[in-house]
């Protein structure tokens, strides 16, 4: 059995004004993997390419060791997808939607589907049109999970959901990975939730991977640094230190603890250095801004 659910090597895809990659990314099995980045970073492009929606210019995508295009059908049987578009109206009712989608999946599990339906408070007889946005998202999750996919891919599933529905979705994702053999890849802007629920994280910006790793390791690696330096003095730019603001002799910056930045700062006469832990959201804002300024 492959240790990784997805392996991406040298993936590129260019559009008129945007290029994704070259991107290398490994999604390990049995975990929740968060793909984050500002709007237009290339998250949806990457997810779509994994699912074989569109053709990559170069590079390789392997899902469970299979080639994403040559073995497209075999992969789709083992993958569930929840996308940002929730157009189920044409099926009329929840039950008819289920019957249609069911036909594509030999592994569809009716008992599991019924159990999920109950948990997500949906009923086969319900009409689609009057369903709330949250209920439509849950229907989409139900359709994606009922064939017990080994890999679940979600593209911004919680945008616009209220706090209760959002928590239900995340609880369902935790249940999905509970047995340890199923994998969830999720792109979302719900950074506070992701910090709590996801095991791994990758941050992409302008088609490039800025940062990736275990969620706890990534979050703990960076600190918000505050320090003082004699007026008129300047700090040369260096890696591992992102200056956020300077007000007189007072500086604020994001500091990468994987590098010896404190020693370097001290050697430059910096005083009263304090380091404060950051949330994923703090880190996101700081790193995304920096690259914009650069």
């Amino acid at each position, binding site marked *: 059995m492959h240790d990784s659910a997805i392996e991406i090597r040298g993936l590129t895809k260019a559009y008129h004004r945007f290029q994704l990659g070259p991107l290398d990314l490994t999604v390990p099995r049995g975990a929740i993997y968060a793909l984050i980045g500002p709007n237009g970073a290339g998250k949806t492009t990457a997810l779509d390419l994994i699912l074989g929606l569109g053709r990559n210019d170069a590079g390789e995508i392997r899902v469970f060791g299979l080639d994403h295009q040559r073995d497209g059908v075999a992969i789709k049987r083992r993958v569930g997808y929840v996308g940002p578009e929730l157009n189920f109206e044409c099926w009329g009712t929840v039950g008819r939607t289920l019957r249609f989608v069911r036909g594509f999946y030999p592994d569809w599990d009716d008992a599991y589907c019924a159990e999920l339906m109950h948990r997500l408070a949906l009923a086969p007889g319900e009409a689609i049109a009057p369903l709330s946005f949250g209920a439509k998202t849950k229907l989409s999750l139900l359709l994606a999970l009922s064939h017990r996919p080994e890999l679940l891919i979600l593209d911004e599933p919680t945008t616009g959901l209220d706090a209760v529905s959002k928590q239900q979705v995340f609880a369902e994702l935790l249940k999905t*990975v509970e047995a*340890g053999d199923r994998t969830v890849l999720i792109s979302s802007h719900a950074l506070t939730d992701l910090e*709590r629920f996801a095991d*791994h994280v990758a941050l992409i910006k302008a088609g490039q991977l800025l940062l990736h790793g*275990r*969620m*706890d390791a990534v979050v703990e690696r960076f600190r918000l640094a505050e320090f003082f330096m004699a007026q008129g003095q300047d700090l040369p730019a260096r890696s591992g230190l992102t200056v956020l603001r300077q007000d007189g002799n007072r500086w604020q910056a994001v500091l990468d603890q994987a590098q010896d930045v404190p020693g370097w700062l001290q050697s430059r006469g910096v005083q009263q250095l304090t380091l404060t832990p950051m949330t994923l959201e703090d880190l996101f804002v700081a790193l995304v801004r920096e690259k914009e300024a650069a």
Partner: protein
Amino acid sequence: MLGPISPAAPGSLYQQIVDGLKREISEGRVTAGAPLPSFRVLAEDLLVSVITVKRAYEELEREGIIYRRQGLGTFVADHGLDRSRTAKLNTARDLIRQAAREAAEAGLTPSETLALARQLIQGT
């Protein structure tokens, strides 16, 4: 089986799980030899990532409070109670030291601080 875990509470989520389990053990709600839920089940229960629980279990294992048996699960160690109490005692010691420092900074003499402590303990 564990108290609530919240980003609004002090300490990281994994530290809250470590402290919560120590509390359960030191207060006798979980006894030596008792099985603990798998980290995936506990993750689902507490609504936190699997890695967060795994890390908490690893720390408790390092401290000798719990142990893992391949294929069987995770259990509270025989010394779990003592170790949890020792950990609690160390925390209490640190907090008392901190309280003494704060009181001194507020201008209290040592005997005034002690009187205050006595009054607060009897009040609870």
